[in-house]
């Protein structure tokens, strides 16, 4: 077993680009999946059974599929269905957004439902509409419950971006695996990949713990 760790240092540029792409994917996905999740949650809680049904179907579908399968499906089927060629990056982003929106919608829904029914009634008794009561009374209370779960979802998403490597999106996992194939430095690159994910992910996980402590349910 002869190891040559210099390959890691030599590839630092490519690895850094991979890291940046991982971070970019995570940020973009959350930017879409948070409003997406709120929309789906409100649809599911609405009085229209069509909206509620559509939202429930969407959410149940994407919560019950392996993400890696959704990535492949998006890659092969979307061009056929939509008739346009999307870049792997966009395809991966779409798959991630579909998946994370579904999860987030459940987070928002249970956050909203966790607020006592009497709060909505008190608002309605004052003459507010349901929408007004949602905005003024329910949401301000619900976001405290929702924030820690969203933080946790962020960290999971960060890890899940590694799955879009299978359709050759140049994030960290794909980059590291490419360098491994080209250089034959298997142990070194795989270990470096794990260590880099650890260095990025560990502080995030600790941050999530802190958020849970700070915003933990006080009621």
């Amino acid at each position, binding site marked *: 077993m002869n190891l040559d760790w210099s390959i890691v240092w030599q590839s630092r540029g490519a690895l850094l680009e991979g890291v940046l792409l991982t971070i970019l994917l995570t940020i973009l996905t959350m930017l879409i999946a948070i409003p997406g999740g709120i929309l789906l949650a409100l649809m599911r809680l609405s009085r229209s059974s069509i909206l509620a049904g559509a939202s429930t179907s969407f959410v149940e579908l994407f919560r019950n599929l392996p993400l890696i399968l959704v990535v492949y499906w998006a890659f092969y089927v979307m061009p056929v269905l939509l008739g346009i060629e999307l870049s792997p990056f966009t395809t991966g982003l779409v798959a991630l957004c579909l998946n994370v929106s579904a999860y987030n919608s459940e987070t928002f829904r249970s956050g909203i439902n966790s607020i*006592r029914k*009497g*709060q909505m*009634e*008190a*608002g*309605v*008794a*004052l*003459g*507010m*509409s349901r929408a*007004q009561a949602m905005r*003024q*009374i329910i949401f*301000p*209370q619900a976001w405290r419950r929702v924030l820690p779960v969203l933080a946790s979802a962020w960290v999971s998403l960060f890890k899940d971006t590694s799955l879009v490597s299978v359709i050759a999106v140049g994030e960290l996992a794909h980059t590291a695996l490419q360098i491994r194939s080209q250089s034959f430095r298997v142990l070194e690159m795989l270990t470096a990949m794990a260590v880099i994910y650890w260095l990025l992910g560990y502080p995030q996980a600790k941050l999530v713990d802190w958020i849970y402590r700070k915003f933990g349910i006080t*009621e």
Partner: protein
Amino acid sequence: MRKGAGEPPIVLYENVRKRFGQFVALNGVSAQVNKGEVMCLIGPSGSGKSTLLRCTNGLEKIDGGRIVFEGESLPSDERAMRIIRRRMGMVFQNFELFPHKTALGNVAIGPTTVLGMNEAEANARAAILLDKVGLADKAASYPANLSGGQQQRVAIARALAMEPDVMLFDEPTSALDPETIGEVLNVMKALAEEGMTMVVVTHEMTFARRVANWVVVFERGAVVEQGPPTQIFEAPHSARTRDFLSHLGWGG
């Protein structure tokens, strides 16, 4: 002569029916609330008193009969109902103050959100009302830092901020420690003396005896007896009223 008898009633209940699935909560209840009257609804738990109250401001929809408020039947359209709710104030058993707002914020939220009042005016009105319920010094406090009795008084001020024509109280003191019940009942008594029309679901018989102008006794979704407190508490016509009161240890 019953108080307010010369004028049309503020609320009229005509044969009101309400079911929850198989359970009949209200089985043809008829009664009326006159202007300036304090009407107390008493009776065992589950007898329909709270349900009737919640039907009055449309939190529950009735299944039969009608409820007439200030001369008009309650609409079935939610948007129209919302406008009517502005003229009714409701105080809940567990206060339901908004925990993310101060006492002042809670009292002002109705005028700002629903009446479109500007913040300064709403806050001024809120300050006056908090003073009226004896909590001027707690204006900046959050509900978590207030006792139960204080929270309920803020809740009363919050309902009053909308300047309603009738105040609906749903067991306002049932969730309070005995020491704090008095402060809330005093506020309600003062409100009654000012001439506010009030419908109060309560287990506080002393309050009903002293402050109510009209008492309605419920049992299993129906009105068993109704009349002035002197009748209900001292010379009830119905054996069921007598049973209910003696169960509570009411000796007069």
